[in-house]
């Protein structure tokens, strides 16, 4: 073996143990889930003892109206919360990106909700939405407006509000960090060219923040697809199946129905959905970067 070959392979040899450990740690549970999804697997059995079921679990779910309903609820919930949280979080970041007295205290206060355990958040909101002793209905009634059936007819909206309350600060922090790391020269140039505050936001700040916002949006989307505790505590998925998101259905299928194989298949459907979303968003991000790079080359070319 030549010296150059050895030289080329050396880093890989040193990296190999870490890569193997990481691969096992990362892939083993995934493989376990995929393996389990092809079996008629009951919690009382070891996975190897469970009967092979082929694609039965996947096909069963494909024809299961309750699974379809849960999927639709999940999509509605995830896209609603992420869209609204992005809007409010980025808006707040743009509003508070300035040096005012007490701003650091205000920023700290904003991030408090995301530090609270989800079960506690669920309980707090459940009691705030309580039809008779809840603060919302008491306030509405005290000003002469009728009470609202928060966790009944408007259950999905109510859990969306609770999630927005808890997770908007996450967007806010990342958006604020992105804003504060923007090149001051670009903003200065825009100001000198007479760009209004609004124009600065639309044409300078948001485009420059976009890579961070896309990753933030992706992280929240992945998380929103997997929300469990808040909804479990607030509505237990009801009324009917109106707030039964997939994570809750997966949990029920595994523990109440004792169908681990079906639960694993459901998790794999969710995983595939998230993979498609992730690839689409990362691809979009890449395209934007390539577009920017091409514009930069063109500008640099003109200038040279």
């Amino acid at each position, binding site marked *: 073996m030549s010296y150059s070959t050895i030289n080329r392979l050396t880093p890989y040899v040193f990296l190999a143990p870490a890569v193997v450990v990481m691969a096992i740690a990362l892939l083993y549970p995934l493989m376990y889930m995929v393996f389990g999804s092809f079996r008629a697997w009951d*919690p*009382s059995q070891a996975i190897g003892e469970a009967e092979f079921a082929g694609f039965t679990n996947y096909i069963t779910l494909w024809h299961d109206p309750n699974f379809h309903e849960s999927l639709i609820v999940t999509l509605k919930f995830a896209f609603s919360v992420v869209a609204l949280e992005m809007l409010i979080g980025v808006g707040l970041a743009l509003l508070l990106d300035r040096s005012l007295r007490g701003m650091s205290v205000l920023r700290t206060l904003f991030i408090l909700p995301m530090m609270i355990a989800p079960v506690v958040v669920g309980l707090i909101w459940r009691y705030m939405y309580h039809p*008779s002793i809840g603060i919302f209905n008491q306030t509405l009634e005290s000003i002469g407006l009728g009470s609202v*059936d928060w966790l009944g007819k408007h259950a999905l909206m109510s859990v969306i509000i609770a999630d927005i309350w808890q997770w908007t600060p996450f967007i806010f922090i990342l958006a604020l960090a992105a804003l504060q790391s923007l090149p001051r020269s670009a903003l200065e140039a825009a100001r000198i060219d007479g760009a209004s505050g609004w124009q600065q936001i639309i044409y300078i700040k948001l485009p420059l923040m976009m890579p961070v916002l896309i990753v933030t949006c992706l992280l929240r989307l992945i998380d929103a697809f997997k929300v469990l505790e808040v909804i479990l505590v607030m509505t237990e998925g*009801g009324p*009917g199946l109106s707030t039964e998101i997939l994570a809750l259905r997966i949990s029920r299928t595994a523990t109440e129905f*004792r169908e681990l194989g079906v639960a694993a298949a459901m998790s794999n459907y969710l995983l595939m959905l998230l993979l498609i979303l992730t690839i689409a968003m990362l691809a979009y991000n890449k395209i934007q970067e390539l577009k920017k790079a091409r514009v930069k080359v063109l500008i640099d070319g003109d200038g040279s």
Partner: protein
Amino acid sequence: MYKPLKLIGMAAVASLMYAGQALAGPYDPYAGTTLVVNFPAHPHYNAVMKILPEFTKETGIEVEVDQLPYMKMRERQTLELGQDEGDYDLVAYVVFSKADYVYADQLENLARYFMNPKLADPSYDSDDLIDGYVYNIGFAGGNKGYLQGKTGSLFGIPYGSETSVLGYRKDIFAKHGLKVPSNYDELLDVACQIPNLEPGMGGLSSRAASGHHASHAFLLHLAPLGGRVFDDQWNPIVNNAAGVKAANALKTIVDCGPKGAATFGFGEALGSFLNGDTAMFLDTTVVAGQINDPKKSKVVGKVGWAMHPMGVRRGSQTGGFGIGIPKNAQNKEAAFLLMQWLTSKKGDKLVAMAGGNPSRFSTHQDADVNAKFPHMKTFGEALKHADPDWRPIIPVWGKINADLGTTLSKVLTEGLDTKQALDGVAERTRKVMEDAGYYTWQ
């Protein structure tokens, strides 16, 4: 002279040692053992925590308790009982877990413990245990597979079991000259009169939230109104006339109930009654302690108790918890001793006095218990009609229960037609039962 004396002395010591061994208490071999038990966070088991030190004092056996919210407890047990060597020596299981655990061969058959003279206390008096509870929670392998019968065996003992009774506001009933309902027609009539007589007050607190709560509330009415989920051939009959009547009774109760009643879980339903927002509460006996606790209740001293109203028959619920020994437990014999002590006459009275639910007829009639908890007498009467078959306890029940509960929630909140909804449940239930092999012999 010296040798015979020495021999006599040795013989005397040996005899004393033998006699000492023969007279050793049943707990002595296990003194110093630490049992790990898994109990739910539940009023009964909170009372159990108060009496466990007495067990340790009497037996020398230490008890370490892993107390969890009961759904969490079930999740933990699902994982724990599947291991080769388990962490738990004794588990409390919610009644519908019985089918899952027994079917998966995860609970010890208790016969070999009750047959062991070194372990079984002759004064245990198993006939004093409440029949409905034992058959509902402890037995498996008999009639229908989950009840008592000639082929059945005992896998657990009821502990923290409950039946249903009607709690009513004595002051409100007296104020308006209302008769305490003894049948379903009267119950529904009074429930819907209350909101008119007492503006802002609901008739009856019921759980109705999607899933288990709605299903539970429906089944509570189904048995007395003459219905069952299955006939004797496992055909779903939940959609027959009795089923529709039970679902409509639940709808009437919710419609005449407090604000937001359609989304009430057990906690909200009870909270509403404790807060004075409803005039009646028809559910488990476990609530009595909280109703009489001035820290939690605004209706202390205002609540009377009556039997679960009659439909075409009497049939109050049986539910709650039992205790069993996992197949993979490390200290099975000591665990049996704890189980036996807790459910003995002495243990049952102790836990009742500490605010728990007794599992014995004699405890319900005990003078001390009745002096401290006067409602116990009515509860004892109700137990005579406790129906162990008010809810099927089969391995696929979790799935059927969830479907029944979510569908009924749609009836209550989205105005789905009752008959059509129950027809759908019956159809889907048939498919679940077919897949599980219940029609193999048809």
